[in-house]
Structure formats: structure tokens, C-alpha cells
């Protein structure tokens, strides 16, 4: 029962959606100010979801109806679970595992691949192939980084990582932590599907590509998933590299850290053009993986 409350209310679905949607507003507002525009009011994210919810859901002829509608829901359930694990673990002794959390965050991408290929649209199928390639590219450096943290800490669980950092200071204080953090920021940017890695959607190339056939409530679920991921993934980074979340004054620190990561993500989004998929793969498998391996070696040497 308690777990259900965690999952549905705090820090799960309701709380994460609200913060996530506010974060999307923050994202849009800051982007707008960078671009000399006015930007939307704070409730824009909620209004968008509300509008989409009462629009008609159109399922393409070729698609399997239940699968087409349910797949995005699986994605939403997965990210909510991931956020719950991240949030609860700092206050209760729940055995959470960073690898599990990272792959829970992967489920929306897989759901999207399913939906995109089910829709039978040529532009969607190009988007699907890009999503798969992108997923494979950013996953490798990120997993290396998680292994690096494991090497240092000796455990995958959030509890272990937080405790180790409370004793030895946050990982980001060391050089390997800084390198790892920068690489992880780019991986998260790609995972969230934001410019410069918004290839699967690529509005001006594919006309929303992989999302093309999504409509109404299904699209709303997808948007909500993305908003919750925008809330969850930065906290994933904070726990992994930046000392985690402690109670009391720590909450304020956590919020400040979250905002800083969010601003970094927004700046990357607004100062880069979209890369091509081959460039993205080269980038992640070359520079980023190389950097992650170097960080790992540095961590092993203890620099």
C-alpha cells in the first residue's frame, strides 16, 4: 500500500508529472529568452497535455490497435517506476539498482520504436531506424560510466553510491567524475531526444518522424513520459555523480543542482544544430566512449 502511494503520488506519477511539466515550461521559457522571444506561461505544459487528452485518437489501419495504444503506456509506467525508485531510495531502505533504473528509462524508447514501426509510415520507419541507432550509440558510453562508478563504489545500489559519496565526497570532485559527468550530460540529451540529437523526430526532415502517427491521448502519454524523464534523468545524474539527495538543507542543494543540469541541457539545445545520424554514432562511439574509457582508467588509478 505504501509502495503504491510512492508509485502514484510521491515521488511517483503525480509529483513527477507536475515537476516534469514545470521543467518543460522552464525549458521553453529559457529557450525563448535566448531566442529573443516571449515564451509560454507557466501552465503551458499542463494545457498541452489537457488539450491532447480530449482529442481523438487515430490508430493507423496497419497497426495493432491495443499494442499501438498500450506501448506508450508501458513507457510511462516504466519511467514513473524509475523516478519512484530514485526518489524513494533516499528516504527508505529499498534496494534500487542504477542499472535497473537506466534500463527502465530505456523502455519508452523501445515502446516508441514499437509504435513507430507499427504505424507503417515511411517517414516513421526512417525515424525508427534512427531511434534504434541513437539508442545503441548513447547506451555504450553511459553503461561504461555506470560500471566506472561501480568500480569505485563497489555496488550498483543507490544506497551504496550515496553512502560512498557521503563518506568520500561526491564523485564529480575528481577528474574522472568531471569527464564522466560531461559525457553523461550528452547521453541524457540524446536519451531525451533533444537537439542536437532529436533525429528520430527531426521535425523539418521527417515531419516528427517516429511520432508522426501518434495523436490525442497516446501523444499526451508520450509527452508526459518525456516530461517525467526530463525530471528523472538529471536526478539520476545527481545520484550517480553529485552526492545524491539528502534531507534538510540537502533538498535545496538538490534543487539547485537539478536546475543547473537543466540549464546546461537547455544551453546545449540552443547552441547546436541537429547532427546527422552517422555523425551522432561516430560522436558517441568515438569521442564519448573513448572519454568514458579514459574516465574509467583515471578512476582505476584514483586520480
Amino acid at each position, binding site marked *: 500500500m505504501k509502495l503504491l502511494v510512492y508509485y502514484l503520488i510521491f515521488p511517483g506519477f503525480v509529483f513527477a508529472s507536475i515537476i516534469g511539466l514545470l521543467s518543460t515550461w522552464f525549458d521553453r521559457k529559457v*529557450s525563448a529568452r*535566448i*531566442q*529573443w*522571444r516571449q515564451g509560454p506561461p507557466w501552465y503551458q505544459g499542463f494545457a498541452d497535455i489537457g488539450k491532447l487528452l480530449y482529442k481523438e485518437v487515430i490508430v493507423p489501419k496497419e497497426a495493432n490497435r491495443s499494442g499501438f495504444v498500450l506501448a506508450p503506456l508501458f513507457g510511462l509506467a516504466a519511467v514513473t517506476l524509475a523516478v519512484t525508485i530514485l526518489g524513494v531510495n533516499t528516504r527508505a531502505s529499498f534496494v534500487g539498482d542504477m542499472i535497473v533504473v537506466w534500463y527502465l528509462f530505456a523502455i519508452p524508447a523501445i515502446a516508441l520504436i514499437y509504435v513507430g514501426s507499427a504505424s507503417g509510415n*515511411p*517517414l516513421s520507419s*526512417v525515424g525508427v*531506424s534512427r531511434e534504434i541507432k541513437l539508442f545503441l550509440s548513447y547506451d555504450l558510453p553511459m553503461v561504461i560510466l555506470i560500471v566506472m562508478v561501480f568500480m569505485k563504489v563497489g555496488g550498483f545500489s543507490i544506497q551504496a553510491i550515496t553512502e560512498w559519496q557521503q563518506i568520500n565526497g561526491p564523485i564529480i570532485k575528481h577528474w574522472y567524475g568531471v569527464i564522466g559527468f560531461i559525457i553523461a550530460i550528452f547521453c541524457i540529451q540524446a536519451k531525451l531526444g533533444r*537537439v*542536437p540529437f*532529436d*533525429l528520430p523526430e*527531426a*521535425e*523539418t*526532415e*521527417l*515531419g516528427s518522424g517516429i511520432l508522426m502517427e501518434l495523436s490525442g491521448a497516446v501523444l499526451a502519454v508520450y509527452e508526459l513520459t518525456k516530461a517525467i524523464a526530463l525530471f528523472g534523468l538529471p536526478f539520476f545524474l545527481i545520484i550517480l555523480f553529485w552526492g545524491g539527495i539528502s534531507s534538510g538543507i540537502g533538498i535545496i542543494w538538490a534543487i539547485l543542482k537539478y536546475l543547473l543540469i537543466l540549464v546546461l541541457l537547455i544551453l546545449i539545445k*540552443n*547552441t*547546436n*544544430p*541537429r*547532427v*546527422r*545520424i*552517422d*555523425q551522432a554514432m561516430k560522436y558517441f562511439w568515438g569521442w564519448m566512449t573513448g572519454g568514458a574509457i579514459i574516465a574509467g582508467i583515471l578512476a582505476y588509478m584514483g586520480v
Partner: protein
Amino acid sequence: MKRTIVPIGPYHPLLEEPEHFKLYVEGERVVDVDVEIGYNHRGIEKLAEGKTWDQVPFLVERICGICSTSHPLAYCLAVEDLVDCKVPERAALIRVVIAELERIHSHLLWVGLAGHFIGYNTVWMWAWKYREAILEICEKLTGNRNHYAMIKPGGVRRDLNDEQIEYALKRIGELAAPTNMLIGAVSDDPVMGKRLRGVGVLPYEDAVLYSALGPTSRGSGVPWDTRKDESLAGYKDLDWKVIVQQDGDVFAKAVVRLLECLESVSLIGQALTRMEEGPIDAEITEVPPGEGCGRYEAPRGEVFHYVRSDGSNMPYRVKVRAPTFNNLPTFKVSCKGETIADVALITASIDPCYCCTERVGVVDRNGNEKTLREKALVRLSVEKTKEIIKKMGRIPTLYEKGI
């Protein structure tokens, strides 16, 4: 590998206007392109035959919202060629000012759109912010932010007073710095360079063969510029050069456009300072029978107008050829072997203006296509009218025709 057809258009977020590109794709790689035009025919040439010589500039101005000075200018040059009159110097300089303002605003618009097409919305918004200054100058000089209605056969419609000239000189001087910043932003950004350099190369030979025009050809090293080649009145005494880049890729075209902006800034400055008091209109009173051609370098390339007169107060025929008509087929060369991601950018790189290009194409049920010419169109319309009269027993009213 299996070939699939990825359609871009006729309605697509990339295109502001309806146009259909069929990309034959193997994986992400484009192996061939088909361009289909003909979605937006507006019958401007026919309409022009029903307007007086002085009214036509207002009509051809509306061929394109962006080249809204180039088209009337080319038309007026054609009429002046027909009646063989010389435009007063002040009028020629005012034409230079307005036309070059238009060039800057068109190029900045393109830079913004190109940024948007590669997902770089910050460049889009910033370029359009600086473009706003141009629109304000235009409003101050002509009363309109767009569709300036300044050009008329024989001269210009309105004179500029000292206050306007001073204002324009001040504002135009402020524009060089942001343009240089944009040039820096495009050429120094490594990610931007990766997206633009070596993409969609149009070699020199192909640019000549397809007779590409404007920045599309100048980006491939072909130094064609009607303003220079024709030594147009107004331009020939000013100090400026034709911008040429050798690489032929999207990056070269972007650089050509941005450097042309700087060149235009200097042209406007020179024209405004050189301006001396004098008449602004050669006052054409009569158009004798005959024909004339007008060529002018629009922001997208050479725009060509042909007029024929039978001695009445209306043109007998007006023919328009917009630059995009020549530039579209170059996709056959520049898109081959590129990825879908780049095709979006390459199609944008010629700064296409589809409505200006449209001609009528007819496809019958078996898929045979042909393009209709004037005579065939007239014949078709006569036949249709006869058919309707036969069916109804009388001439239909405008309402019944659905007009």
C-alpha cells in the same frame, strides 16, 4: 538494397509552399530525386494581359512576397527596353536602395530558415531579429514592410526626403556588425561546419549545364550576376564586386549569401550618399508595338520578364521566368548520394520559391504528362466554355462558374 520512395510534400513542414519531391531511398541514402511542380499555378501571366501597363507592376509584385521588388523591376526594365527610355539617375539609385534592402532581408530570411531546417532555432530567431531592422527601414522609406510598390515603368513612384535618407543611413550602418556576427557563427561553429561543408555539392560544370542562377551558381564558382553583366543603370557607377565561392556545397551558398548582405549594405550606403536632386520619373506616355526583355538579379538569381505590346494600353503578353525554375533541376545532381537528413537542407539551399515557378502540368489517367502552352490553354478554355454553353443553352453567369 530495397528502394523505397520517401515523399517530401506536396504538403510538408519543410516547405512553405506546396511542392512534391520524390526521394528514391536505399536505407538513409538518396539514389534519385524527382521534382514535380505545378501545385500552385495562379495565372499571373494571363491576369497581366488584362491590366494597363502601369497596373502590372502591382500584380507582378505579388508573384513573390520576398522578391517583391525584383519582379516589378524586371518588368519595368522590360517595358523601358520596349519604349527605349532612360531612367533618371535619382530614380535608378532609389531602385538600387530598395532592391538591395530586399536582397538583405531575403538573405537573412534564408539564413534563419536554413538554421531552422537543421534544427538550430537560435540562428533562426536571431537572423530574423536582425532582419526586422531592414523591414523597419523599408517601412520608413516606402510606407510598407513588404510589397513596397516603389517601381513603375520609367522610374520610381515616390521620392525619398532627407530625413528618410538620414534614417536609412543610420540604421543600415548598424547592420554590418550583426551580419559579421552571423558570418562568424556560421563559419566558426564546428558542428555547423560538419552539417554544411561538403554537403550537396553542385560542381562548376553542372551549374553551367543546368544554368543555375544566383547564389546557387555563384556558390559553385560561376560568376554570373545580372547586375554586373547587364551593367544596370544605378549599379554601374557604384563600387561593388560579385561574391563567388568555389566549393559548390551548402556552406559555400550560405557564405555567398551572407557576404552579399555585406556588399548590399555598402551598395545602399553608396547609393544613398550619391543621390542628387533630380527627376524620379521618365514619364512614359505611350507604349509602341514591339517587344522587350528585362533581366534583374533577384536574391535567388536572375528573374526574366518579357513583354509584348500591340500598341494598346495593356500588354499583349507578359512572360515571367523566376530563378527557382532553373535552380530546381540541380537537385538531380546535388541530392544524389546524400542522406535524407541532408536533402532537407539541400532543397532549402537554393532558397526555393515555388509559387513563382509554377506552370501548368497536365497528367492524364495513364500517367502521361505534358506541359500546356499558351495556345493549348486558350483552346481548352474555349472548348470548355462551348461545352458549358451547349449544356446550359446560354452563357453561364460568373456565380454559376463559381468565381
